[in-house]
């Protein structure tokens, strides 16, 4: 199933070509392929050994909650240990995915929307397999659909079906979606935001601040198309905004320099906000292998511990 093709800029490792992955019609199967491919390459990965969860015993110290003492171990060894990560195995994770019309752009055979929801499906599949409660929230200018975070049979299927929704909306407003996720997570949780983040930074910063203020871990995936970074298009075009309908006649030969400068400034601002607020930030371009995105996610998770 793997192909030798590599995404530009990708490390010289064997990853599946994203075009091949995207050609799989079933989203669930696509997620499974991505995660299993990721696990297969995990042994060879320099990021080997990291996981979403692991158990550990720590010696009891004054101030620890005695409810978490492992009494069986105490009976065997006569030492007081605390099971530290039992709560983490019941991690509550919300995937907040952008379904605005700007996500329907794609210069490749697939769109950012396809790429983004594959990431969402893969994460959901991965977390579900680990026994974590996974929820999903779709948004454009407001929250459109919500699947509450659960760990029960059928939850993964519900998420997959919800991810089949088409794009909608006239603008992107991540602030509402992040606020909504903050309200739904009544105890410390984990929020994954998947969006192109092309909306004004202010919209997204307020929601992110709220999540972080509530103590939730946040991983931000910025999904971009290669053209959105370099504007490499042949000939002048009448560009029509997918959300607002605004039409601008532009010749990429003349406009690309200013465009690259503006989009770079915007992306830098987004990344700066994430770093400032302590959220993990992963920028992924749709021609990159999906496994790299997952490993980026795990890396970000690890760095948050």
């Amino acid at each position, binding site marked *: 199933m793997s192909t030798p093709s590599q995404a530009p800029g990708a490390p010289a490792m064997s990853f599946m070509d994203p075009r091949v992955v995207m050609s799989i019609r079933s989203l669930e199967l696509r997620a499974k392929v991505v995660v299993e491919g990721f696990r297969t390459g995990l042994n060879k990965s320099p990021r080997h050994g990291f996981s979403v969860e692991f158990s550990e015993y720590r010696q009891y110290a004054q101030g620890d909650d005695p409810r978490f003492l492992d009494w069986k171990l105490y009976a065997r060894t006569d030492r007081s240990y605390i099971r530290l990560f039992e709560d983490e195995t019941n991690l509550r994770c919300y995937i907040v995915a952008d379904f605005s019309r*700007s*996500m*329907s*752009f794609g210069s490749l055979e697939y769109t*950012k929307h396809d790429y983004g929801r594959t990431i969402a499906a893969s994460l959901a599949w991965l977390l579900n397999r680990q026994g974590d409660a996974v929820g999903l929230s779709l948004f454009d200018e407001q929250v459109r659909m919500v699947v509450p975070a659960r760990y029960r049979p059928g939850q993964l299927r519900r998420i997959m079906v919800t991810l089949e929704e088409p794009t909608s909306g006239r603008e992107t407003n991540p602030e509402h979606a992040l606020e909504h996720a903050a309200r739904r997570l009544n105890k410390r949780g984990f929020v994954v935001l998947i969006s*192109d983040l*092309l909306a004004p930074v202010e919209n997204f910063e307020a929601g992110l601040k709220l999540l972080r203020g509530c103590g939730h871990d946040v991983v931000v995936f910025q999904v971009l*198309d290669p053209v*959105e970074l370099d*504007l490499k*298009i042949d*000939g*002048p*075009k*009448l*560009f*029509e*905004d*997918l*959300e*607002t309908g*605004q*039409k*601008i*006649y*532009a*010749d990429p030969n*003349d*406009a690309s320099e*200013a*465009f690259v400068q*503006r*989009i770079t400034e*915007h992306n830098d601002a987004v990344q700066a906000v994430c770093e400032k607020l302590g959220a993990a930030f992963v920028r992924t371009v749709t021609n990159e292998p999906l496994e790299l995105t997952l490993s980026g996610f795990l890396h970000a998770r690890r760095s948050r511990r």
Partner: protein
Amino acid sequence: MDFLAPLFAAIGVAAASIPVVLHMLRRAPTQDMPFSVVKFLKPSRPKLTKRSNIEHWPLMLLRILALVLIGLAFARPFLREVIPLDLQDDVVQSVTILVDKSASMRRDGIYEKVQQTIRETVDELGAQDLLSIALFSNTSRTLLSREGWATATADERAAMVEGVVQNYEPSWMATDTGTAMRMAADELAQESKEWRNIKMRRLVLITDFQRGSDLDELKSGKWPANVEVELKTIEPTKKGNVGVTFVNDRRADRIRVRVSSAGDSVQQEFALQPFDAGGAAVGKQIKVTVAAGQRRSLILPAADPQAGKTIVGVELQGDDHPFDNVIDLPEVENPVVKVAHIGPAAMNDPESMRYYLQRVLDGNVERDVQLGDLVKGDGVVLPIPVDVNFVVVTDAVPPALLSSVSEFLDRSGTLLVAPPSVDAVLSLKKLLPKNFNAIEADVDEYAMLGNIDFEHPLFSTFSDARFADFSSIKFWQHRNLVLPQTTQPGVRQVGGHTNSVSVQPDGSPSDKAVQAAVDGSAENPQDGICSIVAKFDSGQPAIVEVNTGEPGRIIVFATGWHPTDSQWALSTRFPPLLTRILSLASPAQKEQIQQTVGDVIRPGELVSSDKWTVTYPDGTTVRWDMPLSNSTTPAVLLNNQDNVDLSPQPVTRPAKEQDTITLDQPGRFTVTGTTEDGKYSVSLIAGLAASESRTEMLPLGQLQVLGIGVESDVEAQLETDNSSADETTRGQLSANDLERKQKWWRWLLLAGLGCLVLESLWASAIERRQTAEAA
């Protein structure tokens, strides 16, 4: 090649340069592209490139050709055709001058203009041209024929035209322009076959072209293509007009009129002044405000009866054109009808006949009826008032009243006798025929009406089978009326049936007399005639009409309608029967018929007489004293015969219509018929047609809308220019005719559309090829 509308040709040629410019310009090709971050893009200026070389030459030429051809088609081109000169001497135009003489032409300033326009139109004609002049209103009449014109010398022609001009006088008739034009056009078209050298047929219409002109006839068929119409409109010195017309009201005791203002009226404040038979004003003026184009109806206040004046007409004041401002009105009858009652004055006793009589008369919706008792409760007896035409007797008549009743009958009064007893009948014995008698009948359980003469005026309203059932009325008791019998068996026809018999005048109620009464009516030439209107099922008379020889009449019932005698008062047939008798006794109104000026009447039928006289509003009298069958004998005109002769009668009239009269002026006509019974008059009030008051002018393009080729000023000028520029073009057809005949525009338009189709096919082929190459 000439053009009727050269502007379009110029536009087509100018538009031909557009494809050239477009083919030399090339806009940078653009392609729509949906994008997610348009806000980060900086707009570029679209680039237009100018090419020195033109691509797709054939395509450009096709486009130019299409524009030019379509422009030329709209310019309506035609080629001049010259008729050989040797035919010029034979070219003749036939002209009919149609002059409006309807009532609206009576407005100030029109008369002189019409005369001047007729003279000018005739002066324009050549010596070879044919002329006919006709006047029209609701009908048309030819005053000058083509045949007479063709054979007359120049001096005679001038005299003929001057005669027509001097005799022109507007009438009071309505306008039927459509019919007059249709007749004149048909006549012109017909003549073209007889006069082969006629090359032009023209109808000159001299009219005020007011909105009330009736053009409906022009919609009925196709206008002859070879007849042109030249419209010469005449306008009065002052615009606007207001007219007053009579409107029928449901109630006979009030008068309603309508004031209509023409659409171009300026004034809005007017006044209505009623006047009496002498022309003197009655009452105060009534202020009326009517805006232009609006109408308003109002009821005239009733004249004060104490003043003794009667309103016979009303005049509208404040209008500049008085021709439709005075109308005659029907005389309003006395709104209250008085009925006298001889009998017990028991107003609230349901056992008395008066109780039911009062309720029937109170229920009359057409008129107010006032019932008065002649025999008061204290025994005082009053004579019958002179304004009473109907007296009901429900008891024995006091002897003191008999002389008054006799006088009442002399005044053509109607006496209804409903005797509750034999004495009631016998109290009137002096007024009844000799030997008229009554005895109490021996009724077995009850009696019913068995035989009714539905052709008698009393029962004619019940003649329909739906209302003819009287079998539900039961009579508990009645009197046997014994009718007189003469020695001569006189028989009177009633409604075509021989239901009258002669009865022996022996005065005794013999079986023979009863049998005679059963068989029909009895007649006594000396004392009167008895007609049996209805009989009981036993054969006894139930209702008898007695004609005593005096103008009045006596109707005798054989029973009363109170509950003691019968169920009659409770029957639904009872109120209509009493109302019918009341209407026969007091006719609702002196017969007055509303007509419109121009209506044709048959006076003989109105008065049911072969001898009649018609008095016109201006005092003219027309008398007819010959039987209708001799219809070829004309009416004898006593006065002002010429005036009647000027009425717009059709030129030819069938002999059987010779006994008709045309109401040719507004006002009151009186038709008096003479029969064996005396004279009978009918009053006819002729009012001006309401359409004549609508004097605002119709749009001048109205005739073109109806498909009539009206010669416009542009075409007239074109032909004038051509004739002055070149003598050889004298024989040319008009530009309009040539264009209509040649119809070049059709071919040009077809060619232009063909070019467009070819261009579309070519362009699509080029695009497909370019797309394939790009792919």
